[in-house]
């Protein structure tokens, strides 16, 4: 390993996962460095969501290793993964429906709270100072993403595009180093997709974090990713820049073949 290149943020080494007799993902390698925007694509059923779930702790690899910041994260439950600094969004938006927009983001700050049950009950000075700080941070984040005016609205009554945005804001509130987006463009019209691309680029710049994007929509992926990995039947068949991926014969065949 060369001393010149910095250690990768996320590293999957030869990850394999089997469900009974079915091998969903096989010997998968992936590396994401700091402040990189990496895409993961592949035809339906290729195993993209499975890889996603491996990284976010929903599944445990049958073989292989996963390192984040140099530490193995295999076997850590999803809430522990979030604590390590990996945040995620969901394909079918999972906001907290009975909470307001404000509270959806606010609750995500709890990872960095120093006040727990005892302080919440005692309600001393330290508690209120922290609550005020959190409130200010929530307001700031909502403003940055243009959701400030919705702050007390129940999250479920937001328009779809705003809900998607809120979910990303909530994920960012956990102060992650890696943000994993699971098909964020699903269900969006072309205008909303352009907005989304802008949003993702903006997030990366403003928060200086890495982003893993699993997505079906080619325009979105090609438009913003620095690097793209392609999965087919659980195996990585290609990984390089968007331009090269578009010309890669194996990739074309994987998609065309499955389009039949």
């Amino acid at each position, binding site marked *: 390993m060369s001393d010149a290149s910095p250690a990768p943020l996320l590293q999957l080494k030869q990850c394999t996962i089997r469900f009974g007799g079915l091998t969903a993902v096989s010997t998968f390698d992936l590396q994401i460095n700091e402040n990189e925007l990496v895409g993961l694509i592949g035809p339906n059923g290729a195993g993209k969501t499975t890889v996603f779930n491996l990284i*976010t702790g929903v599944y445990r690899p049958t073989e292989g290793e996963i390192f984040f910041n140099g530490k193995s994260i295999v076997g850590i*439950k*999803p*809430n522990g993964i*979030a*604590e390590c600094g990996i*945040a*995620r969004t*969901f394909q079918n938006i*999972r*906001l*907290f*429906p*009975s*909470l*307001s927009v*404000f*509270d959806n983001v*606010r*609750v*995500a*700050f*709890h*990872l960095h*709270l120093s*006040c*727990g*049950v005892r*302080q*919440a*009950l005692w*309600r*001393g*000075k330290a*508690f*209120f100072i*922290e*609550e005020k700080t*959190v409130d200010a941070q929530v307001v700031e984040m909502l403003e940055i993403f243009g959701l400030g005016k919705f702050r*007390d609205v*129940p999250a479920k009554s937001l328009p779809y595009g705003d809900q998607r945005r809120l979910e990303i804001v*909530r*994920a960012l*509130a*956990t102060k992650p180093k890696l943000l994993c987006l699971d098909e964020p463009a699903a269900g969006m019209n072309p205008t909303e997709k352009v907005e989304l691309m802008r949003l993702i680029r903006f997030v990366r710049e403003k928060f200086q974090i890495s982003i893993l994007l699993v997505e079906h929509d080619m325009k979105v992926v090609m438009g913003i990713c620095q690097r793209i990995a392609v999965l087919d039947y659980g195996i990585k068949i290609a990984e390089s820049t968007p331009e090269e991926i578009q010309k890669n014969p194996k990739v074309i065949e994987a998609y065309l073949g499955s389009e039949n």
Partner: protein
Amino acid sequence: MIAKSKIVLLVALIASCVISRFSKSINPYHLDIIIAIGINITLAVSLNLINGYTGQFSLGHAGFMAVGGYTAAVVTTTFGAKLLPLLGGTENIFAKEVLFLIALFTGGIFAAIAGVLVGAPSLRLKGDYLAIVTLGFGEIIRVLLQNTETVGASRGLTGIPSYTNLFWTFGVAAITVYIVVSLVQSTYGRGFVAVRDDEVAAEAIGINTTRYKIIAFVIGAFFAGIAGGLYGHFKQYLNPEGFGFMRSIEIVVMVILGGMGNTLGVIIAAILLTVLPEVLRPVAEYRMIIYSLLLIMLMLTRPQGLFTWRKKSKPALSA
């Protein structure tokens, strides 16, 4: 600068102490109902933390009440004679109050332990399965008490001193409301509602759902136990029969009627449902039939509870 909520709590405690002094001038029949209201408020609000805010459908709350009630009664009856002299003498009023405090607190602790024992294994279960298991635990507690000779088994435990008064009842109720509301409205406490709304999403933002559920069970059970202690020293008699499935259902109905996760609504519902049986006394024979029909009607027409409404601004006592 003291928190506004703490001032409110203090005022409530002082008020209940003052009113307690005048309890002699209140019609005893009405006094009984008022005390029952106070105990039910504590039960309903504590259950609301588990069922309403955290979404864990517990049908065994009466079991926690029983554990707390019996423990407190054992402290005052069995150990009272030994403890009172240490606290100031058997005729000393202050000593009796302190004894009662110790008894209630001990009852709460034991109930909280029961809360962990019931909550921890139930965590993996959802919806109806969780309901059935908690129901089962409640019944097991009842059967165990029925088979324990030292607390009177199915004959019940008699001779419990009458320590419960308005001050204790509403003091405890006020503390329960304060604790549940303070907890749930804090940033940390929003996690409870997150667990209820979507566990998967909650885990994704780093919430340890297991821990939250156990905390809810522990705190909920603790106050149910204290309510049980209040109840025992109010009726001066405890019988395992009174802590069965039906009792748990009565408390659950208060939470549902009030709106799961709506503390103010639950308090109102507790008051209404305590008073209702008295109001229905003329038709006492049909009382339970009406009660069950009301339950069905409520579910068919307004399952979100009578007092849940959409509010624009952040409400003071709702989730």
